[in-house]
């Protein structure tokens, strides 16, 4: 059973969908859903003004015909499944703690900021600051997993504290900058200054040789048991023809990898694992 919210009117500006989550909506009736107030600046506008509410109350929530005017989509979600047809705006999956969020379009900036659990899947691209810390917070994403099939903008995983980010396409500049912990895997090209100020955590660079900055030192890569767990996890998680599965198979069969640690200007315990130039 799914609740279906179909966009019927594009809002005049950016409107927050924080709290419009499957776990919350499952407990209330359709009429009540229409009256949920959506934050637009200082005002609160009823959800029914922008969406037609249909379907049956249940653990699934479907948004139809979405565009980027709506931010905080899936914000605070704790369980259930939310599917978005169209694009999602900024702050997608903000402070999410559980459940699954699937976007059949692209996401905006600050996807998964403050996320602590659950999974976000984006079939298109994502903007800047994916999993990164909000400007007024010390840390970024704290748990959960984010999968982006396309590319991501700048500062992906900036100050990431925990959790995993998988990007099927390219990453913009400053990927994994100031990263505190967690894992980021980029299947495409890495932008400039990857790992800048990195303290801890792991960045997998799959597609091309990693140009190690001077503040990174190359170490021996002797993490056989750990990498076996990673490859096994990837092979179980991704389709056989995905870049991650192909990389895991190749690595498992002895493809040469290299490892760097840095950023020495910071804590210096971050690692980048990938192909060397």
């Amino acid at each position, binding site marked *: 059973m799914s609740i279906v919210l179909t966009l019927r009117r594009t809002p005049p500006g950016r409107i927050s969908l924080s709290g419009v989550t499957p776990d919350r909506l499952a407990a209330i009736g359709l009429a009540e859903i229409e009256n949920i107030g959506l934050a637009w600046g200082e005002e609160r506008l009823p959800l029914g003004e922008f969406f037609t509410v249909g379907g049956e109350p249940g653990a699934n929530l479907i948004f139809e015909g979405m565009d980027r005017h709506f931010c905080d989509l899936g914000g605070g979600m704790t369980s259930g499944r939310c599917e978005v047809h169209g694009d999602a705006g900024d702050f997608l999956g903000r402070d999410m703690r559980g459940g699954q969020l699937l976007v059949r379009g692209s996401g905006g900036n600050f996807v998964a900021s403050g996320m602590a659990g659950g999974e976000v899947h984006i079939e298109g691209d994502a903007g800047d600051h994916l999993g990164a810390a909000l400007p007024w917070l010390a840390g970024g994403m704290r748990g959960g997993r984010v999968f982006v099939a396309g590319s991501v903008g700048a500062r992906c995983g900036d100050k990431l504290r925990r959790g995993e980010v998988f990007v099927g396409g390219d990453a913009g500049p400053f990927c994994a900058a100031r990263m505190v912990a967690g894992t980021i895997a980029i299947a495409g090209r890495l932008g400039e200054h990857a790992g800048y100020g990195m303290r801890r955590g792991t960045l997998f660079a799959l597609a091309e040789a990693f140009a190690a900055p001077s503040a990174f030192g190359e170490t021996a890569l*002797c993490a*056989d*048991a*750990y990498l076996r*767990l990673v490859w096994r996890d990837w092979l179980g998680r991704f389709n056989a023809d995905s870049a991650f599965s192909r990389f895991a198979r190749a690595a498992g069969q002895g493809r040469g990898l290299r490892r760097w640690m840095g950023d020495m200007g910071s804590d210096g315990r971050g690692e980048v694992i990938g192909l060397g130039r």
Partner: protein
Amino acid sequence: MRLNNVLIDDTFAEAFGMKATRVIVTARNATWARNAGIAATGFATSVIACGCEAAIERVLPPEETPDGRPGVALLLFAVSTKELTKQLERRIGQCVLTCPTTAAYAGLREGEALPLGKTLRYFGDGFQISKLIDGRRYWRVPVMDGEFLCEESTAMVKAVGGGNFLILAENPDAALAAAEAAVAVMREVAGVIMPFPGGVVRSGSKVGSKYKALPASTNDAYCPALRGRVASALGPGEDCVLEIVIDGLTSEQVARATAVGIRAACAVPGVRRISAGNYGGKLGQFHFHLRKLLEEST
């Protein structure tokens, strides 16, 4: 009751509640996994003086280990959570962390968490790395051959220790052959270990001693050298007795191992009688009645 003309005493083995855990140790090849397993479970025959009872439960092929390398499953039993925690940390820290190419993983999922990498990680002196993979936390500790990977914790369950049976035979050759045959089939039972050397113990004990300092002393009633001198439990022609002690994660596993072990022992020529050790049934919470086990196992 007789099995292959071997008398099965109408008695029971008395076993005790214990705390147990399983750890999976892998290495680059089976030799090094086994080396680590043997070291980690060394000097662990009896809780009386070793702190815990431990052994390699079974050898694991690569397809059965978390990282796809050859491994061994270790079982450790102790009388308390505190002692098991201490023994686990010492044994994995001194015998697995130190062994080339090894990694250590939780072998049980359900139960109270026992620290594994959680405490051993400090060996990394700040260079240890924590990674969360598929919801489970691991520690990567840099060591001279690369890194020691260790899962954050394993689980502890309530278990059974001290299951046993006695093989009474005409001579040492028959007793040894029967004990070896029994241990070989008992090792096929999951969740049990026979912690004594080769799975067999010759020094069965009774509670107490004439010497105040000793909590246990030789079971004189089963010593053939004392037959005729003490109130012996041995009959004519019963000139050698060997005991097999069994620890298991569940009483069902101990019962199954006991039954298959007795059947194997009874198939060896020269075995006269099968008995079991107990304390009158007042000390241990688990009673394994030999005849009942054998009847149920058919």
